């Protein structure tokens, strides 16, 4: 549970369409300081789009987004400044292939935030150490496994000292044996009190990490619940069906 009621992110009546198709149909959501919110829902229900709207990668149709009380959906928003406060890690490894690990990490702090390089290196090294990549600073992305790349991507976002981190299915493209190492990093971040908004299909992880579960379907938030309550006894029929289908698929996958 959030031990501080301070609101980091407040989304009000967010609507977003692609061409004439509405993808987000009025989203209302608040994320408190140090709170871990996990969004789950069927593929195509708008989870990625929601995260992408939060840092301005997608323009929105209507509604409001506030970050620490500052309205960031007003015209003339300086997105570069906002994005420094919102860390994002995507599903596909998106390190810059022409830069080694440390230069990937330093681009933001040094070029965008103008921090002294030496100081940023110390910070980066300590994060790399914490995610188990201490000796990988000079490796290039092509020399890393998928799990290592995602851990670097997480460190790269963390080194901007964001006020909230967004994770969009960061383990979805990983080989099964690498999922664990990335989820462990995220669990540790949660324990450390980082404010996080996580989209995932890993239900056991969701249950373990979440302060709160948001269930989305077809552009709506259908259910908001405590993790135990949600997984043991979902309130809505749609959530129940989703969990059933999901468990079935999970069994199939394990058997395969």
């Amino acid at each position, binding site marked *: 549970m959030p031990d501080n009621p301070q609101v980091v992110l407040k989304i009000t009546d967010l609507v977003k369409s692609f061409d004439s198709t509405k993808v987000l149909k009025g989203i209302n959501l608040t994320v408190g300081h140090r709170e871990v919110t996990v969004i789950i829902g069927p593929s195509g229900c708008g989870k990625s789009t929601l995260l992408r709207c939060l840092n301005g990668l997608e323009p929105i149709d209507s509604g409001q987004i506030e970050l620490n009380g500052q309205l960031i959906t007003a015209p003339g928003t300086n997105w570069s400044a906002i*994005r*420094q406060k919102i860390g*994002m890690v*995507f599903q596909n490894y998106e390190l810059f292939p022409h830069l080694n690990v440390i230069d990937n990490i330093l*681009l933001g702090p040094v*070029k965008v*935030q103008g921090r002294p390089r030496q100081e940023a290196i110390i910070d980066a090294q300590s994060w790399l150490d914490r995610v188990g990549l201490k000796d990988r600073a000079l490796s290039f992305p092509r020399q890393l496994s998928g799990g290592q790349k995602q851990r670097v991507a997480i460190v790269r*976002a963390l080194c901007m000292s964001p006020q909230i981190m967004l994770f969009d299915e960061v383990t979805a493209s990983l080989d099964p044996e690498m999922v664990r190492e990335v989820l462990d990093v995220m669990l540790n971040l949660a324990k450390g009190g980082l404010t996080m908004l996580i989209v995932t299909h890993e239900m056991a992880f969701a249950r373990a990490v979440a302060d709160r579960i948001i269930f989305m379907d077809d552009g709506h938030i259908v259910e908001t619940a405590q993790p135990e309550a949600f997984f043991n006894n979902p309130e809505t029929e749609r959530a129940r069906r989703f969990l059933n289908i999901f468990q079935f698929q999970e069994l199939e996958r394990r058997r395969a």
Partner: protein
Amino acid sequence: MLDSAIEIFTAGRNTARLFEGLAITLKISAAAVGLSILLGIPAGLLMSSKKRFWRVSLKLYLEFIRIMPILVLLFLFYYSLSSVFNINLPAVTVSILVFTLWGTAEMADLVRGAVTSLPRHQWESGRALGLSELQLNLFVIVPQAVRRLLPGVINLTTRMIKTTPFVFFINIPDLVKVAQQIVEVTGIRNPLASVWVYGVIFFIYFAICYPISLFSRFLEKAWQN
């Protein structure tokens, strides 16, 4: 046998003229490659942009240039400009113009290919870090596009050098033209003239183009990450 070679390359200004021919070949190629790169980059960015007018018209231009034999273009500009429009351009200028028209089309296509082959995520993850559009291009997009562009540009350069002998047909004394003249004159007394002269030409082309491709391989290796 060696005597015949010595005789050819010491007679009159033969060697000096070969070097003059080489200078013309290099001048035309270098000017055309340089101009093609300068004009091809913006053209390629327009081709990969969302601007439909530019995409379509540049694509048409590229197809047209590719279909047209270089020789036809050379004749068209050299002879037709003067007879129809009464514009008399020096032959070297015409050849640089024609090779630039061709090179710009090819260069634009290379740039388009390099930029569109970059995954969309490269832009997005750069933006997500707060990079401005300028920083994004400077630190993320351009360095990667240049790496992808390099083999094509090197290839275009050597193709350009190898195609310059066509200027022979508009009477420019390039390397091959000079060689032919030397063979014509010395061949009467010296039956091995063609072997020696064209053999030297062969090595000159090799000596120019091979280091270029070596250099490109070196850069590719250095950037391979």
